């Protein structure tokens, strides 16, 4: 009797170990970091001022079934800031001196599922994280016969009008991923360069790394997000944060900044805002 129960227990153990291994195998396969494309992006923050261009480094991490797209500088900065705070640098100091860690880099992290074509968006505005999920609206491309070499890859031209702007894209079918920077998908190869026709936005791939052995720097993931929000509300909040930070602080954190002398709320001039997505 003891031997029998021992055998059963052993079998159970073996089955559970096999199950665990198979789960791990599937999990690790799903999360295998296949390809990394680094984009240098220039965004014109004020549509009327060509001098207001801001440069960011965006990463497109490609896994087996999905991709992630985010600002490397923002996420690395957040990670370092968090590391410093847990490592003894006082919270007040670190959060006040945020500019030590990152600048006005893009805060949005996009996750795109290749099979379901669902797009998950997570955004950290100040210390709050907001997220939503939607069916991805794919651009409709018109491919042209022009070619150009980018990073030694032969690229073909394609044009589209997407979310209120007209774009010229360059893709390579030597890298058969149907994705690109931001929400540009749907070409038969990786998109290495996109510019809008008004020259306000530019995405250009600067590095391609196969099977990258680097640590994923994303500081906050979609699954960490606790505040689901509608797409339009998030767009409104982002616009408010960029144009009128005082009002944004009042609406999201209940904080208002007043002048010590007059006691009146401080108003700052409305700043320009020029988002990629022009749809309402």
């Amino acid at each position: 009797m003891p031997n029998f129960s021992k055998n059963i227990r052993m079998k159970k153990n073996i089955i559970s170990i096999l199950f665990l291994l198979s789960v791990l195998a599937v999990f690790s396969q799903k999360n295998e970091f296949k390809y990394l494309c680094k984009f240098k992006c220039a965004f014109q923050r004020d549509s009327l001022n060509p001098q207001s261009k801001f440069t960011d480094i965006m990463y497109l991490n490609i896994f087996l079934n999905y991709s992630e797209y985010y600002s490397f500088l923002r996420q690395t900065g957040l990670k370092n800031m968090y590391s410093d705070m847990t490592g003894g640098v006082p919270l007040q100091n670190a959060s006040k001196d945020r500019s030590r860690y990152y600048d006005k880099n893009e805060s949005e992290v996009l996750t795109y599922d290749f099979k379901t074509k669902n797009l998950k968006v997570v955004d950290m505005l100040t210390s709050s994280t907001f997220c939503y999920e939607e069916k991805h609206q794919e651009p409709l491309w018109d491919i042209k016969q022009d070619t150009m070499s980018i990073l030694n890859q032969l690229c073909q031209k394609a044009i589209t009008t997407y979310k209120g702007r007209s774009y010229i894209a360059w893709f390579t079918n030597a890298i058969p991923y149907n994705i690109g920077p931001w929400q540009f998908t749907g070409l038969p190869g990786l998109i290495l360069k996109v510019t809008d026709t008004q020259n306000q936005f530019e995405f250009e791939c600067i590095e391609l790394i196969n099977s990258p052995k680097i640590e994923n720097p994303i500081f906050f993931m979609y699954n960490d997000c606790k505040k689901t929000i509608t797409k339009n509300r998030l767009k409104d909040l982002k616009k408010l944060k960029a144009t009128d930070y005082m009002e944004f602080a009042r609406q999201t954190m209940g904080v208002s900044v007043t002048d010590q002398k007059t006691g009146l709320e401080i108003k700052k001039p409305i700043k320009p805002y020029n988002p990629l997505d022009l749809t309402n």
Partner: protein
Amino acid sequence: MKLFFLILVLPICFNSFAQNIISGKISDTIGQPITGANITLSKKYQPQILSFTFSDSKGAYSLKCVNSLDSIEINVTVVGYASTKMMILNLPQVLNFILTEKETILPTVVVKPIPIFNKGDTTIYNVSSFSNKQDRLIGDIIAKLPGIEMDGNGQIKYNGKAISNYYIDGLDLLEGKYNIANQSIPYDLVDQIQLIDNHQPIKVLDSFTTPITPALNIKLNDKGKNRLIGKGKVGIGLTPTLLDNELTFLKFKSNVQLISSYKYNNTGLSLTNELNNNISIKQVGNNSEQNTKDDILNTITDFKTSLPLSRTLFNQTHLAYFNILKLFKNTGELKINLSFLNDNTTSTEITNTTFYTSFNTINQRQIQKDNSNLNQLSSNFIYTLNKKQFYIKNTGKVQLSYSKEKSIISDTNNLTQKLSNPFYQYSNDFLLYVPIKKKIYSIASSFNYNEAPQMLEVVPGQFSQVFNSAFPFEKISQYATLDNFNTNNNISFFSRFGKNQLQLKFGSEYVNKVINTSIQKTYLQTKYNLNDSFQNNLNWKNSRIYFVSDITFKEKKKKLILSIPAEFSHVSLLDKIKKYETKISNFFVNPSVVLVLPSSSNFETQLSYNSQSTFGSPAQLTSGLILNSYRNINQYDSLVPKTLQHIYSLSEFYKNPIKAIFGYLTFSYSKSRKNLITKETYYNFYSKAESIEYTNNQFSFQLNTNLTKYFIPIKTNVSLSYSLNAISFPQYLQNNFVTIKSISNNVQLNILISKFKKANFTSNSLFFISKNEISPNSSSPSGKIYRLQQSLKVFYFLFKNFSCFSNMSYYVTRDNELVAKNYLFWDAGAKFSIKKNDIEFQLTNLTNTKYFTSISAKNNVKQIITQEIRPRNFLIKYFFNF
């Protein structure tokens, strides 16, 4: 997996259709549909895609072909499967594809980082763009960055301006002793070197004042952070037995930094300059000359040769240091810097010294063998609290050093001189800034006490006619003690009006220096203490009250800094031997003005004027005779020396990091008005210096210029610099009033080529010419002295893990009287890399040059020094990391 692919083609022709539709299904070898495969059509032999589609979740696809061609190429690609390409007729048809699993080899294209770029006020150098296999330490990289110069003491200048802070990942662990970091941190732990202009380290002052000197930050990579890094070196060689060992520990975390090391060598590698303080910030008050060591006695080893020290240094040096920085949760920062140096050196020199006077010359020749031993313990304890609300910094320093020097001088007169030279210093600086209602108040307080009880012993006794009625005697011992106490305290106030700033400072300084000297002679085995005329007991007190108003006018990046310091200074000098007291009071206003004019983002002009009024040191007021060295006696029975100096300078800086061009041009002219003149009298073997009252002017002119261009595509750095120094001053020489003029020119061209994978080249060329003149006598003391140096260092990277180098240096020295001396030095070596460790073989002085003669001139003195050179050496070193 077995590699195969199978294509099932089921063409069905529908000739009657006007638009051709090709459809089908994409699946894998076990029949599972493949989603998201790219199906494209293109012309034969042409890469351009005519139309495309993707397979859906069931693997199905449908594609219109709008081209009128007879045949087209269909291509199916998807990551993880072998791609399929075939020519088909341009007809409506159904094509099913079965794809075989196959790893897709995707391209990797890594772009090398931009070597230099600008980010706001910061110029960023990517270390990987400048590093080569021969480099080991971050100091090696900094020294060759375009726009950066590092001098022999390790001081770093960025485009001609000395840096004011040296940070490691934003923390200032070492302050001015940053050579420690340069000589300890491996370059591969560093990502970037950042030069920050307009950097204000004190947060309270952030929006008030910005220094015009740059700061340097070393940005570590992930390899350099959050772990204890150990590295070591074991070196052994011949001849004689050579050792070169090192053990270093480093740790850089966000809240703790540590650099600790022990080093020993007898290979000619000087370790003393690692402890040099290369940043001198006048933190408290204006007069910071009080803390420096003021030697009364010395052994005359002033003149330096043009050779690198490593060729002439016979040493046994131990150096240990421990530097730690801890950041507390309240943002407080505690730094402890401890170091111990034990340095033993020997040298042999043959010196021919010529003293030129207006009507004759005096020659001295001697062979001098020196032994010196220095033990120095330094400790700094620094606490800083740098917040927006307030700033506190307290620096406590203790330095204890004891040095012994022994010289044996032969030829004209065999004698031995011994100098014991201890120095003990204790100091504390305190600084507080508090903002109150948009104004900043500051309190600064410092005190310093140091003592230097020196003793010089000369055997046999010298200057017998002075000390022993011309009878030869056995020994003379000179004792000299200098005790120095000073304290400086001030309060200041910063305010802003519009874009402009105002700082008012009110403070006082008290300096007390006590000098005691006495002479003892040994004659016929009896010791005699000499009488009052050979003794000094001076008590010097200098009290200053100062009021400084600094106004900074700002217009965008243009700045005008106007400083008007007014001070009342009172000096009292009590000579206890002569029993008399002198008191002098003076009121000085020494204005200074600095104008900073950035004419564009690349050009900046700086104009400045400042004046300084200073009293001389009490060491220049000793009425009793002092034997400074075996051949000098001084007697300054004079007034208190006063100097009023006016300095004018004009600088033009050019900086274009994008094009990697850096340059500067600095003119500086100064006029010093002195109330005393030095009277030098030379005898056959010794000289005597006195001071006499005579108002005189000293003029000096300096021009420094440098132009550096880094050619990015060919990884070549070219740097050309020129400097001119001219000085003119009067002197009372052999009872004659003369004017001494001295001019020196220095041209230097450095070229570094790192383009080639298999080799690197470094060429340094230097041409130096100097001229000294004494007027009214037309004959110059030494005529012109010429010096030419050319060195070429080549590194060959023969294999991945093996490299070798050859370093050749050629020196030519000549003057009007001496036939030109030419020297060739050649060093060679090889390096094997085994994983993280290296083995290095080094052969030094292959030509086995034994002696080196150099000529130098200073004022009216010319020296021809022949020095012993380190012999041919072989050294094997093992570098390891753990």
